């Protein structure tokens, strides 16, 4: 099975304190650390497990600048066979549709049975997977938490529904799946693993290589434009507890007791 996994380099929410720039145009990016988007990491692990079971290869692709290469190497250290970097100044400022357009172009250049994306990105809006499937006119299943690959032309995919229950669907190959966290336990990648793939060639494609006209992607083509970032005003009835963690906990317990939430 030939599998393509679309991944993204994002500011790591666990290791950053996200603050908004004074002018409201972006978040403060000076002191951020980045990693591979968590959902994408589960998607890569799933792809590797499928490949290990039924054979084939796993390719990881990302749209980003030169620094995005580090997440491709990381996924290759996990076990992906190949990485592709899609990078071009023309891609900058793309909206979800723009990113899907770029990804569609690389999918068309290959021959993939299965295309995986994360269900969403830490800094995204959960758009790309669905748009990519629609543009490719391929079947699409989202929030997938289980993949059963048999030998036939169809696979079974699962989704968690209310009450912890499981729903299973059948879907024809080739298809696009957006992967939910918890589908597996992604393996650990250490410094040693990344060093091992440090010298593997990663091809980079720009708009021209992909046959994309500059006006189909990037800021110009974006139909959704970001206009502002701000921290909401505190609403009526909201209260932010101040002090050390111990003090905050004491106040919280006091409040819960006062409102009858704790006895």
């Amino acid at each position, binding site marked *: 099975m030939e599998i393509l996994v679309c991944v993204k380099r994002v500011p*790591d929410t*666990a*290791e*950053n*304190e996200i603050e908004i720039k004074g002018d409201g145009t972006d978040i403060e990016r000076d*002191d951020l*650390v980045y*990693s591979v988007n968590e959902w994408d990491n589960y998607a890569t692990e799933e792809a590797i497990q499928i490949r290990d079971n039924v054979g084939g290869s796993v390719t990881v692709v990302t749209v980003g600048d030169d620094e995005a290469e580090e997440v491709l190497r990381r996924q290759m250290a*996990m076990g992906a066979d190949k990485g592709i970097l899609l990078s071009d100044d023309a891609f900058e400022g793309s909206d979800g549709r723009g990113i899907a357009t770029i990804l569609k172009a690389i999918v068309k250049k290959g021959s993939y049975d299965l295309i995986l994306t994360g269900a969403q990105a830490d800094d995204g809006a959960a758009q790309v997977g669905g748009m990519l499937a629609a543009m490719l006119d391929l079947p699409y299943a989202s929030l997938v938490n289980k993949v059963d690959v048999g030998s036939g032309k169809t696979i079974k995919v699962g989704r968690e529904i209310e009450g912890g229950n499981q729903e299973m669907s059948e879907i024809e190959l080739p298809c696009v799946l957006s992967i939910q966290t918890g589908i597996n*336990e*992604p*393996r*650990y*990648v*250490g*410094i*040693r*693993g990344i*060093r091992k793939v440090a010298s593997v060639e990663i091809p980079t494609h720009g708009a021209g290589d992909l046959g994309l006209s500059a006006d189909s992607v990037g800021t110009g083509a974006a139909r959704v434009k970001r206009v502002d970032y701000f921290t909401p005003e505190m609403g009526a009835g909201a209260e932010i507890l101040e002090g*050390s*963690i*111990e003090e905050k906990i004491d106040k919280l317990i006091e409040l819960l007791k006062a409102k009858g939430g704790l006895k």
Partner: protein
Amino acid sequence: MDFALIPPAIGSFWFIPAWLIYTLIPVVGITLFIYIIVMRLKPMVLAAPDKPINELPQRIFQVIKIWLLQYRHPRYMAAGVLHILLFSGFLLLGLRSLELMFVGIKPGFHLPGLGGTFGAIYGVLRSYAATWVLVVAVWAMYRRLVVKPARYEVPAKYGKPHTAEAVFVLGLISILVLAEGFFEGSLVAAQKQQGMEAHTLAPFTLAWIFHHVLAAAPKGMLQFIHSFSYFVHDVTFFFFLCFLPFGKHFHVITSLFNVFLMRVQRGNIKPVKYGVSREQLDDLESFGVKKLEDFTWRHILHFYSCVDCGRCSDNCPANAVGRPLSPRFISIKGRNLVFAKYPVFGEPKAGDEPLIGTTYEEDEIWSCTTCGACEQECPVGIEYIDKIVDLRRGMVDEGMVPQSLQKPLSAIEKRGNPWGKMEKKRAEWTKALDESIHVKALDAGEQAEVLYFVDSITSFDDRMQSIGQATAKLLHSAGVDFGILGKSEKDSGHEVRRFGEEMLFQSLREHNTEMIKESGATKIVTADPHALNALKNDYEGLPPVEHVSQFLLKQVRKGTLKFKPIEDGNKVYTYHDPCYLGRHNGIYEDPRELIDALPGIRRVDMLRSRDRSFCCGGGGLMLFYEPEEDQRMGVLRVKMAEEAGANVIVTACPFCLVNIEDAIKVAGLEGKMEAIDLSELMAAHLVD
């Protein structure tokens, strides 16, 4: 020469002269024994290299102390005394057994030097030794079969109990000494009957008892007993010798070597591979132990040497709280695998089956806090920490790391601390200090004589920052010129290394070493024993490192620090020895002396203290790991403090404080028990 009875060397078996048989038995026995040992050495030859054997004087000292004098045995009094008696008996009877072997070939043979006065003295000694060995063997069988100490039990998941083997060997030992007693007793009885000169038997020895019992026996019967007991002794002796390498009694042979080769330096971790330099590490195909042969040859020798006495597991905190780890079975399972894969008779089994998932389980290997209680206790010097770390290195290399540990590891890689907090906030704990106390920022160009290495938990944990503040206050009050590295400090990597992520550890070590050297400090002090151990035993080429308790004690002795008396007379303090201060670095007395410097303090020791201290739950990455366990180690520890009659637990480690404070809440002892760090206690009682 007249014989009261025909000696074994002169008789015959039908038409075959007995001396021939008694030459063949040792020849066959020894040949077989050598073959078995060669087969047992085979997996050791195929195993990974181990460290070169240096530090000879210390090793010889350890052999004398731990092997010959059985120093660790009386830690379990009953079993220890039994073993010392049995061991000394064995040593004494060794010569006699050698001599007896030749008696079957040459009548009346004496080993050179054992003929005269010395021989007579030796004769008395070994007769008593044989007698007490029998008493001890029977007593040991009674313990195995009737008393059944709990630590000998084998949980069902680890296989069948080993009682049968133990009793069988005790039986063989009994046969040996009984046969020897009958051999000698029957001869002396016959000599007396015939009015010949008989050598004097030491009273109340086996031979003495038997010669009385047989005093009136007919000569034919005495002859039969004499010849038969010799035959039984000879055959049993060589059977016993060849049986040893098949089970836990292999230690009779291997323990001497095992003790000679045991750890001399504590607190350290073996390199990924001996003989491979730091620069060559990237070229290694594989890291750590994944298959049996990845263990070092010394580790295979450990498997051979395990006596199955259960002392390690009896002291293992992970085992005590029901985690799926029992160090004893790390050895026993390892040995079973070596024996199965490299049989004495037949071809070695092919295949490189991974150890994890077959012999060992992932959770088993992650359960260890590396507290070192098992190594402290083992009477034959078996080590576990290096094996656990090597197995973890193998799992890390294969990506088998629990999700709970992946986040903190990645945060350490990116931000230099397991919580992923911003580097620039590493010195924020100093903001709460009194304005009169200036903590120099060595990362901002200031210079100081002493570097206070804070490490991650004290820098970032809201509660533990108070340890940093107390330490700074104490250093300031003692007039010490000190500073910190601030944002230039990264996690010491102590647990990163012990959790098997060697390359990440090395990059942390490289960074911190550079920063420390650049700071120009000539001394390092830390209040975190894990940082202490890392800087002292994992890093190289740094200025001398001390724990704050050592450093402060010198100040107290000099009189630069003065303390107020304890106000609350109802408080009874107990000191909990942190593993990485105590067992791994031998610092037991300094913190106690420091506590006792507080006027009017009442301090008691817990039953488990000093080198038998009980781990509170582990530090560093262990705080993030989610083990399967029935209860928390800390809860057991807090109850031990309660039993000792204490109501304040003093620790000298931020991780101990986290675990113990949590445990007090879990144990429902809030209000009855409190925990405090040594530096906090001392700082609170400073005379202003």
